[in-house]
C-alpha cells in the first residue's frame, strides 16, 4: 500500500447571528454588568433567558434582573483547558443558579483546585474588562468569599426589568475554527501521486467499464469499488464551458484576468469530464469540441490551465455522452 497522504485542513466560520429581543436584552445587559432572566409560562425565572418557553414553547418576554452571585448546582474539574475555553489555567466547569433564577447557567469557575469546589458553593461573576455584549462578557465565576453585595438584583428575589439599554446589541459574530488532518483515501491518493509525475490517472468500474477522473473510489452507477488504474489524457476535448467576467476574490485566483473561460474537459480515455481554466486563446474563441492539453508550471502540483493543441475540433458525437 502506498503511503497515506495527509494535509492540514482548517475550517473557519465567522458566524454572524441576529438576536431575538430576549437574547438582545440579555447580552446587552451583560455588557452593562446586569444579568437578566425571563419568566417562563410556569412562573419560574429562566437564566440564561430563552425567547420561547423551554417546556410549552410559548413566546416569553417578561424580563427580570437576577443577581450576579449564585450557587453551583454541578461542576466538573477541567485539568487541561482547551483552545477557546474561558480560562487558560485549570478550572471547573460549573452550572450556576444565580440568585433569583430557577435554572442554571453554564460557565467556568476560577478555583485553585478541585478540592476548592463543591456543589452548593457560593460563587459570583467576574466581569471581563472589555465587554461587547456576549456570554464571554462574563470572564468566569469566582468563589464568593464575603457576604453578597447589597445592590440591585443581588437579593433572592428577581426585580422586574424593562430590558431597555442605550445602544442595544442586535447581533453577535462568533468565530469558529476547527482543525483537521485531511486524508483523501486510496483512490484519490493514487490520483494525487500520479499527478506528481504529471500523469492523470482515472479508475475503471469493473462492472460498467467506465473510467472516472478524478477517481473517488466507487462507481456511482454500480455502487462498487473502482479498482483498475487507467492513465488518461493528457489531451482532451472541451465539452462545455462558461465565461467568467467577475474577478475572483479568492487569493488563489487573483492573478487571472477576466474575462476567462472555465471549461469541462473530457480527457482522452475518460468517461467523466473534469474542469479547468482554458488559456492560450482569446476567451471568445473557445468552443465546444476544442482540443486542449495541460500546461504545467514549474512548481505546480496539477495543471495550471489547458491550452489549444492546434488539432481539428473533435466531432460532436465523440463527446456528446460526456456533456
Amino acid at each position, binding site marked *: *500500500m502506498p503511503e*497515506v497522504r495527509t494535509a492540514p*485542513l482548517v*475550517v473557519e466560520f465567522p458566524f454572524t*447571528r441576529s*438576536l431575538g429581543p430576549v*437574547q438582545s436584552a440579555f*447580552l446587552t445587559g451583560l455588557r452593562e454588568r446586569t444579568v437578566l432572566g425571563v419568566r417562563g409560562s410556569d412562573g419560574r425565572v*429562566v*437564566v*440564561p433567558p430563552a425567547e420561547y418557553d*423551554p*417546556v410549552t414553547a410559548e413566546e416569553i418576554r417578561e424580563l427580570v434582573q437576577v443577581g450576579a452571585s449564585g450557587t453551583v*448546582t*454541578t*461542576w*466538573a*474539574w*477541567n*485539568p487541561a483547558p*482547551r*483552545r*477557546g*475555553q474561558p480560562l487558560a489555567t485549570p478550572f471547573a*466547569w460549573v*452550572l450556576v443558579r444565580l440568585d433569583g433564577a430557577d*435554572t*442554571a*447557567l*453554564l460557565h*467556568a469557575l476560577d478555583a485553585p483546585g*478541585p478540592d476548592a469546589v463543591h*456543589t452548593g458553593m457560593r460563587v459570583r461573576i467576574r466581569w471581563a474588562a472589555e465587554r461587547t455584549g*456576549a*456570554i*464571554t462578557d462574563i470572564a468566569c465565576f469566582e468563589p464568593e468569599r464575603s457576604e453578597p453585595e447589597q445592590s440591585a438584583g443581588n437579593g433572592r428575589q428577581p426585580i422586574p426589568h424593562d430590558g431597555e439599554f442605550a445602544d442595544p446589541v442586535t447581533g*453577535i459574530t*462568533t468565530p*469558529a475554527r*476547527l*482543525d*483537521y*488532518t*485531511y*486524508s*483523501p*483515501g*486510496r*483512490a*484519490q491518493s493514487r490520483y494525487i501521486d500520479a499527478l506528481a509525475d504529471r500523469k492523470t490517472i482515472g479508475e475503471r468500474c469493473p462492472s460498467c467499464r467506465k473510467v472516472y477522473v478524478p477517481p*473517488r*473510489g*466507487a*462507481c*456511482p*452507477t*454500480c*455502487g*462498487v*469499488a473502482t479498482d483498475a488504474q487507467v492513465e488518461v489524457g493528457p489531451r482532451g476535448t472541451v465539452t462545455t464551458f462558461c465565461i467568467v467576467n467577475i474577478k475572483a476574490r479568492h487569493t488563489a485566483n487573483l492573478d487571472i484576468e477576466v474575462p476567462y473561460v472555465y471549461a469541462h474537459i473530457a480527457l482522452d480515455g475518460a468517461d467523466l469530464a473534469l474542469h479547468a481554466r482554458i488559456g492560450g486563446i482569446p476567451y471568445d474563441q473557445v468552443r465546444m469540441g476544442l482540443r486542449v492539453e495541460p500546461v504545467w508550471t514549474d512548481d505546480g502540483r496539477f495543471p495550471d490551465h489547458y491550452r489549444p493543441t492546434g488539432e481539428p475540433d473533435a466531432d460532436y458525437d465523440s463527446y456528446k455522452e460526456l456533456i
Partner: protein
Amino acid sequence: MREVAIVAFGQSDHVRDSAETSEVEMLMPVLHDVLAQTGLKARDIDFTCSGSSDYLAGRAFSFTMALDGVGAWPPISESHVEMDGAWALYEAWVKILTGEAETALVYAYGKSSPGDVREVLTRQLDPYYVAPLWPDSVALAALQARALIDAGLTDERELAGIAARSRTAAEANPHAQLRGPVPAGEHLVAPLRTGDCPPVGDGAAAVILAAGDTARRLTDRPAWIRGLDHRIEAHSLGVRDLTDSPSTRLAAQRAGAFERPLDTAELHAPFTSQEVVLRRALELDAPGSTVRINPSGGALAANPVMAAGLIRLGEAAARIQRGESDRALAHATSGPCLQQNLVAVLEGES
C-alpha cells in the same frame, strides 16, 4: 399497523484512524455485506436513508459522495439526516409504514480521526450562550456525572464497573475498538476518567428493513420492530435535571418497552455515567430483572459518532436473528448529556 423488521445488519471494524480509506471506501464493504445477507441488489431497495455529519471529518457534502457506494444512478429514492443513523432508520421505518416502500437500506458512518471530536461536538451547542465557551463533550458529560454522584445515584467505583463490564463483553465482538482490561486512567474531566469515556474512532454500519412477508422471505428470523419512538428535551443544560432522562422514559413508554419483560438492552451510552441515567429511566434494575445490558460492549467499546446509535439497533436485531434474544430494547442518543433519545423494541417471531 404494518409489520416492519430489521432483516440484516453489518458494520465495519471500528478503528482509531482510518486515514487510508475515504468515507465511501470505508462504507462500501458494509453496504455489500448487508445486501449479500439478504440476496438483494442495490436496485431492489425501495428507499435509502443515511445519517452522518460533515463536521466530523471536515468534508463538505461528504454524504453525497458516500452515496456513490450505493449506486445512486439512475436516481434512487433517498434521504439523509445530519444525525445518528438511528434517526435515519426511524425515517425509513415511517416510509415503510406509509406503504411507499417495501424495503429500505439504512446506513451511517463517522470518521472522528481527522478532527478533534471533543471540539467538533461543541458546534452542535447553543451558538449564543454556550458554544462561545467551547465546552467539550467530555466536560458536559462530567457535569452530568457529578450531578449523579452528588445525588447519591452512583459513585466512581460503580462507573468503573460499567466500563469493565462493557469492555469484557466486547471481547466477543470482533468489530470493537476497545476490549478486555482497560485501566480506569487519569481524570480527563473529573469525575470522569479516561476509562469512563468512549474510544475515539472511525466506523460505519448498515441495516436493511423490510415489511411483512418480504422480511420473512429475506431472513429466517426477522427482528420485528414492535415500537419505535424518539423524544427531545430542552437544549439549555441548566433547565434540565441531568440525573434523569424523561425523554428516554417517554420514548420507551410509547415504544411499548414496559409492557412485557425484556431480555436484552443495547444502550447508547458513550459515557459510563449515562448508562446509570438510562438504566433508571428504563427501569432495567427493577427487582427480578434479568436484562443483559450491552452484550456487544456498547459505545464504550466502539463509538463511531453518527453510527453508534444505529449499531445499537443492529446489535439488538442481530441477537434476535441469532436466536439469542426474543425481546430486546435498543436505544440511541444525540446531543449533549442525553438530550435526545430514541427507543426501539424488537422481537423475534413468537
